[in-house]
């Protein structure tokens, strides 16, 4: 009995090891990819952020410790970028999560498959357009003589009013949010639709038998059971918003004022590429990385305490 059980144990460990090896083999490409394109740049940026390094200089960069970080924390320009990033992020991702959820629920109520498919394609199409093309389209819309003013003036019956989509500090921030919202909402709708489809219909049937109306079903069944998807979507939306660059860059190229929409990524570009201060730009990117890490951690923490299972 004893030798038999030992043999059995050895066999069991062997299979586990073999499985683990295969697992590692499958994971290695991802690790290599991550190491090359994420881990290495992060470490490199962290290292570079400790130096006064100019892009074109062939001289060895001067070590300045935390000098770049100290400079940034004292810089009004950097704090303006932090402000612009937070205004954009909270002004975009919160409405995006709420509205994409509302649209997803609306889609789930549409029974005709063809009509539902048509809506899904319509919502998702902007997500496949590149940021550059999207911003170029919206630059035309926001031109003073473009469709933006024409639509708003037609609806509000205010002919000739220039809403200064790009020529006003507040409006240009709103304009970047509109573009981003339009572009990415379809993507998050698809995620919510997928989340909604995982909720068993038997729960709704039971609730209906028990006398629950659609409103009660939504708040008592859909929302709690959709929580993992809401957390996923809100984290993804927030991280995307924190990394926003293309729209702001193209709007500035199109003549919009830089300061109101000078998000951290745009400031990194200006500092590193235009002004050639790669050390300072690296410090900014590390700060942005830390901000993203903190927000993700906070969202995970706040969502974990109320997990629901069925």
């Amino acid at each position, binding site marked *: 009995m004893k030798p038999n059980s030992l043999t059995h144990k050895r066999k069991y460990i062997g299979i586990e090891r073999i499985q683990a090896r295969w697992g590692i083999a499958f994971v290695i490409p991802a690790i290599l990819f991550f190491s090359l394109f994420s881990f290495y740049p992060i470490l490199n940026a962290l290292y570079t952020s400790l130096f006064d390094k100019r892009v074109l200089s062939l001289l060895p960069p001067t070590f300045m410790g935390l000098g770049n970080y100290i400079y940034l924390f004292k810089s009004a320009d950097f704090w303006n970028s932090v402000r612009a990033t937070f205004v954009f992020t909270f002004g975009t991702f919160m409405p995006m999560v709420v509205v994409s959820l509302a649209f997803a629920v609306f889609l789930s109520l549409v029974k005709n498959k063809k009509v539902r498919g048509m809506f899904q394609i319509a919502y998702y199409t902007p997500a496949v357009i590149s940021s550059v093309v999207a911003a170029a389209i919206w630059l035309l819309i926001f031109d003073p003589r473009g469709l933006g003013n024409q639509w708003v003036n037609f609806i509000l019956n205010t002919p000739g009013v220039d809403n200064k989509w790009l020529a006003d500090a507040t409006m240009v921030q709103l304009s970047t949010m509109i573009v981003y919202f339009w572009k990415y909402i379809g993507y998050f709708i698809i995620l919510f639709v997928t989340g909604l489809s995982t909720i068993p219909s038997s729960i709704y049937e039971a609730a209906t038998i028990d006398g629950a109306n659609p409103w009660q079903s939504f708040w008592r069944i859909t929302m709690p059971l959709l929580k993992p998807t809401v957390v996923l979507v809100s984290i993804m939306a927030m991280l995307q918003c924190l990394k926003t660059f293309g729209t702001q860059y193209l709007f500035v*190229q199109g003549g919009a*004022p830089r300061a109101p929409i000078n998000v951290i990524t745009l400031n990194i570009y200006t500092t590193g590429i235009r002004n050639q201060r790669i050390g300072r730009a690296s410090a900014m990117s590390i700060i942005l990385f830390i901000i993203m890490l903190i927000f993700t951690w906070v969202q995970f923490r706040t969502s974990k305490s109320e997990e629901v299972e069925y």
Partner: protein
Amino acid sequence: MKKSIIVLMILALMVPALFAQGAQEQQGPITLKFWTHEDPNRTRIEEKYILEFEAANPNITIERTTQASTKLIELVQTAFAANAGPDIFNLSIEDEFAYIANGRVAPIDPKVIGYANTKALLDTYMDGILDPVTMDGKIYGLPLELTNWCIFINKNVFKSAGLDPEKDYPKTWEDMVKISQKLVIRQGDILVRRGFDFRYPYYLVAFLPMVEQLGGQLISDDGKTAIVNDAAWLKFLTYMQQWGPSGLNLGSPTYKNARSLFNKNNNDIGMATTGLYQIGRIKAENPTFYDSKEWMVVPFPVFEGAVKDVAASFYGHYYMVNAQSNKATQDAAWKFIAFMLSHAEEYLTEVSLIQPTKALMASAAYKNVPYSEVFTKDFERGHIVYYGKSSSEFQTLIRSAVESVMLSGVTPEKALATLKTAAQELLDEQ
């Protein structure tokens, strides 16, 4: 297994460093990577020169790549940062100077391009033209073009507003406001036709001279103070505030660039600031408008009571050669550049680009270009654009100040205070 993963990760981290190694020695046939900005008229003649040069030098192949001028600035810099810059490139001098200052471009060996010495090369060009690319007695670039801007006028637009373009054209910036108010057509607040509008990204070329007319300076003569003469800067910023949508609403950076609209002659714009090359572009894009002669060129205006008569600064695009290319490649690159630039008259007549050699400026070809005398006189009133290690950053700061008064409701006083602090900090860091 763990060890092998660690080894793999270390190798993965090392791979980019291996790829980022510098210049490679080249033997045998030479391939020249030549990056330049888009200009269809120039592409046509330069591709012809490439074929001729390759036929005469069978061991040399030239790969010419074009990009939008703003994109090229980033591409060249990123390539140089990775030690993989092109063999030949050109940018505007305010963007190019950093390449000289950082030792990234190779000096010309005059003998390689057929000159006895540096002095002979210098003597070929108008006085001072090679100053921006000369350091420690060595020349690091040859001008593809030297450009100054005057004011192009659409006579049809003037006539439609009851003005005589020959007499009523703006001589001062105050005139520019008055005339623009007459030429402008609005639908409510929206400008359907602008009288004139500025070229907004080019703050060092066309805006700084306006400040200089009022006695202001970007950098003091001793090089220690940035943003000199508050009164001049304030007057300039107030002028721009009044020009913008929150002031007299005569123009804005958010409208389509005036220079591009000018050629179309579709009643969008009355006047635009641009260079001699615009003539070639009008001819190519709208020959009917070109032939109609319903356009003219007048000098760059000055402020009333200006303390200095300064025209728009002239700027140069200089062809440069990568210092990390090997010597044979560098020599081949300079030979090819010299070959292209030996066709100065064709660049002028086909592309309207001025390569300011003494011979060209004295030639009948130059004198026969319409309005060339206006550009020549403005050359004499102007100076080379500000260039230095941080010229691009200074331009960004002036841009922020102008945008803040025009578009963000910031007062000129506050914009000036911000500009002064930032510019001084930048100067002190140099």
